[in-house]
């Protein structure tokens, strides 16, 4: 199963619908300070089931919804979708039969957030399990946030044990 595309609308500074194709090999993302590069990483963590606003640099979950600029009004909804393609029909039992898996998460200001798996509403736990079975997830060590690369070295030995569990 591969990650193929990330779609955002109303999420942080990505107020207009935006698509990021994720192709094999290495995709570079560049741009000036403050333009929204790290926001893309948080969109990916969020759709995979991240539950702590603080880990996405917000005070509360509503901080993830576009808050407006001096020229545009704030939005009340944010939605992120990740498209996984499944050419070899492998993957966890849940989805072994389908060629594509689309996971979406949507939040409304003042309300909670809901998940959808190929269009059907589903629980957060099922989404987190899906990504865990694929060997990733919001807490995966393979999502290295800005300024955090040295954290593995400065962590306590017990905190690093998670790396071995991921490798198992």
């Amino acid at each position, binding site marked *: *199963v*591969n*990650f193929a595309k990330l779609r955002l609308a109303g999420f*942080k*500074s990505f*107020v207009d619908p*935006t698509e*990021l194709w*994720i*192709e*094999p*090999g*290495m*995709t*570079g*993302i*560049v*741009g*000036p*300070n*403050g*333009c*929204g*590069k*790290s*926001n*893309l*990483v948080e969109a*990916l963590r969020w759709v995979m089931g991240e539950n702590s606003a603080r880990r996405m640099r917000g005070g509360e979950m509503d901080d993830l919804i576009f808050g*407006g*600029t*001096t*020229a*545009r009004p704030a939005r009340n909804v944010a939605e992120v979708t990740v498209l996984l393609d499944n050419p070899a029909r492998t993957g966890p039992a849940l989805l072994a039969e389908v060629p594509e898996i689309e996971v979406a998460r949507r939040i409304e200001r003042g309300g909670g957030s809901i998940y959808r798996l190929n269009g059907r509403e589903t629980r957060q736990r099922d989404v987190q399990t899906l990504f865990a079975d694929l*060997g*990733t997830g919001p807490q*995966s*060590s*393979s999502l*290295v946030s*800005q300024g*955090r*690369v*040295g*954290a*593995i*070295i*400065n962590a*306590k*030995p*017990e*905190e*690093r*044990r998670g*790396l*071995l*569990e*991921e*490798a*198992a």
Partner: protein
Amino acid sequence: GRERLLGSFDKVNQHFQELFVGLFGGGRAHLAMTEAEDPLDAGLEIMASPPGKKLQVMSLLSGGEQALTALALLFAVFQTNPSPICVLDEVDAPLDDANVDRFCALVSRIAAETGTRFLVITHHRITMARMDRLFGVTMVERGVSQLVSVDLQAAERIRRTG
């Protein structure tokens, strides 16, 4: 649980030693499990010494040396159990040009070996030039992010003018 953890320790340790030597062009490094009644409670120690230097406390390593050591460990986990996606947000910021080169070469090797797809956020010219494709994020309208596919020349321009 216990066998799996100890089995994965051996594999990660093996890969970590090779990757460290590759990234630093020498030296030696290894992992160790801390003492604990139950291996499931043990922690992971990192012992590393860059070429020509004595083995020492990890905190004495420089900013760049710590980043490279962390990347060697991260990729060792990958080689043991590949993840479908990896995102690296400006991990090359503390590196000098020679180490940026070695870092890029390693990412490109891992991507080819494991099939992991990499998203690499960077301000470094050298890293940009080594990518398979580039996206630029701009804020033509202040406060509103837009994503555009760019070639290396356009990326250079975005880098310079912001």
